[in-house]
């Protein structure tokens, strides 16, 4: 990174952290510290919801996914707008009416203490671990690509987030979300237009898009039904709906965002805005990745994008074989570039027969490049059985630091830092809230002063910040970070959603039946994850339905006793 990049990066980070500390400097009571006095307008709520969901992983991994696997990941988000409508109708008015601090408080009013504690506990486990991953994921990528020490990056991101979240509470979190969302938007838009600018002068945007499509990178919608296929229309619409219902309706990190709305209408509008904007936003980020793919059709790319794994090969016992593969890769890429240009020429001439022939040759050339890459991965595994052979997370940042101009690199990296901080701060904030409201104030000390609870909330935020950093410092090598986070969430989301659906819609089901049904549902999910090949998005459906069905069976038995 050049001096200008450092100035941009440090400038933005100092601004965001200082702004957060300043905005949240006065917190007189728990309502102010946890829910910002329920005074936020819909646009702040909306940006906060979006900034909470969009972590650094979103901006690092998603373009890489489009590069390696195409745009089919967009289908994961298709259930989200439907979930926003359902939650606006059901959950938002209930939470507002009952004036709860956490979603789990509602469960005690509806069921009993044990159901509230179980659900709050599942949230603390799942979100506590995910909080560590949220810091670890970008830190790992920065350390590998930029050569920064991993532990230092973890401590810088974690330390800054913990500082302003602990001192400023929800007000600091939501106001910084607004600034962070602006920086992220500027960073990604700048990156996108710079990529277009960097494409060869004689290739138009439409031609570049055709190249991406012909090489299978614009596969946004796939209507085929396959339970083992991670991302198709049906898994996205049905599985994605259950994930979104659970995440936005029952996960405190999101519920707390819209509980800060000034009224039901402001909270609802925040959610509906997210429902309108999220899918196009993800499409844009994936499309950016597809354009990076097109860029590398005209510029040589590395055989493997993770430099630390590549270095292990270059210095290991298979160094000579790897050099040979690198040469083959360069030749295969040069041949592919020729075929890409042939396809473009044929398109320009309007010669469909020549275009079909060139297209066929292009597919063959692409397969040769893929084959060399597969050989390199196989060599990597032979060299080191524990090697991380998934380089999806490294594609975008590798491109950013090698090809973007000074200043823009700093802006994009600041955007990724902001994304990491925005989701981490919401996580720490919600973990602290659940710890204080559902554990400390409910089970340990029920009648302390507001000042006491605010102090304990700050300490709880600091504790969860330290926990996340400790977890990040000790976590092993994770191959696909996006998937790890989503898979971890899917193990718990279905069960939690089932509990809340029982609460909302099954008025005759009592607390004891729900409690046992939740245990049955979680066991069903864990069995599914361990013994079946079904894609992880379906765990949400399995967990939710298992809880509801088990409750319907158990409830009459419990009542009879």
């Amino acid at each position: 990174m050049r001096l200008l990049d450092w100035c941009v990066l440090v400038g933005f980070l100092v601004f965001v952290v200082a702004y957060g500390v300043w905005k949240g400097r006065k917190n007189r009571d728990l309502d102010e510290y946890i829910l910002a006095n329920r005074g936020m307008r819909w646009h702040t709520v909306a940006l906060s919801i979006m900034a909470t969901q969009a972590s650094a992983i979103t901006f690092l991994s998603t373009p890489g996914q489009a590069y390696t696997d195409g745009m089919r990941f967009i289908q994961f988000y298709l259930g989200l707008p439907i979930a926003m409508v359902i939650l606006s109708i059901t959950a938002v008015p209930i939470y507002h009416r009952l004036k709860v601090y956490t979603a789990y408080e509602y469960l005690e009013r509806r069921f009993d203490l044990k159901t509230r504690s179980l659900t709050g506990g599942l949230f603390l486990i799942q979100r506590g671990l995910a909080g560590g991953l949220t810091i670890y994921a970008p830190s790992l990528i920065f350390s590998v690509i930029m050569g920064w020490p991993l532990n230092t990056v973890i401590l810088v991101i974690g330390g800054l987030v913990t500082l302003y979240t602990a001192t400023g509470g929800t007000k600091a979190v939501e106001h910084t979300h607004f600034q962070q969302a602006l920086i992220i938007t500027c960073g990604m838009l700048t990156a996108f237009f710079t990529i277009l600018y960097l494409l060869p002068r004689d290739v138009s945007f439409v031609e570049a898009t055709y190249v991406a499509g012909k090489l299978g990178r614009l596969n946004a919608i796939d209507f085929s039904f396959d339970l083992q296929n991670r991302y198709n229309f049906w898994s996205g619409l049905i599985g994605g709906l259950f994930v979104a219902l659970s995440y936005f309706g029952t996960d405190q990190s999101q519920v707390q965002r819209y509980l800060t709305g000034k009224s039901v209408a402001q909270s609802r509008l925040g959610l509906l805005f997210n429902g309108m904007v999220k899918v196009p936003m993800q499409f844009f980020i994936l499309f950016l990745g597809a354009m990076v793919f097109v860029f590398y059709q005209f510029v040589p790319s590395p055989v493997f994008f993770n430099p630390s794994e590549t270095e292990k090969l270059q210095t290991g016992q298979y160094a000579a074989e790897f050099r040979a593969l690198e040469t083959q890769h360069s030749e295969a890429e040069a041949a592919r570039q020729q075929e890409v240009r042939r396809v473009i020429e044929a398109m320009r001439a309007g010669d469909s027969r020549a275009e079909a022939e060139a297209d066929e040759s292009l597919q063959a050339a692409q397969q040769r490049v893929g084959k060399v890459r597969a050989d390199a991965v196989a060599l990597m595994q032979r060299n080191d059985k524990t090697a991380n052979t998934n380089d999806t997370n490294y594609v975008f940042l590798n491109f950013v630091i090698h090809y973007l101009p000074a200043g823009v690199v700093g802006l994009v990296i600041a955007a990724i830092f902001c994304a990491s901080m925005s989701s981490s701060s919401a996580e720490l904030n919600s973990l602290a809230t659940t710890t204080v409201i559902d554990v400390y104030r409910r089970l340990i000390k029920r009648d302390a002063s507001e000042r006491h609870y605010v102090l304990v909330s700050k300490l709880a935020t600091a504790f969860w910040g330290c926990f996340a950093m400790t977890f990040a410092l000790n976590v092993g090598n994770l191959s696909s970070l996006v998937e790890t986070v989503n898979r971890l969430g899917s193990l718990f989301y279905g069960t939690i959603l089932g509990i809340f659906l029982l609460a909302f819609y099954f008025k005759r089901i009592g607390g004891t039946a729900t409690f046992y049904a939740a245990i049955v549902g979680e066991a069903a999910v864990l069995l599914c994850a361990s013994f079946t090949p079904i894609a992880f998005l379906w765990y949400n459906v399995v967990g939710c339905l298992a809880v509801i069905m088990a409750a319907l069976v158990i409830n009459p038995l419990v009542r009879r006793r």
Partner: protein
Amino acid sequence: MSNEQARANETKRTDEREVQRVAADERDGERIVADEPPPIGGSWTTLYTIVLVTLGVLIIVFYIFTKAFSR
């Protein structure tokens, strides 16, 4: 009726009252919303329809996009 049965019946009645109370709270929540129109868009039904129709349009656009550029 034995004491045990009486206690069981009382527990059942308390449970049902609690369920009815929460249900009433939730209905109140719905009433508040019904009284509070959205600042934009006229009615909530219109806004929900806009969100769902936008999703439908996006799916169609993405499908056309997939087909058009992969030929």
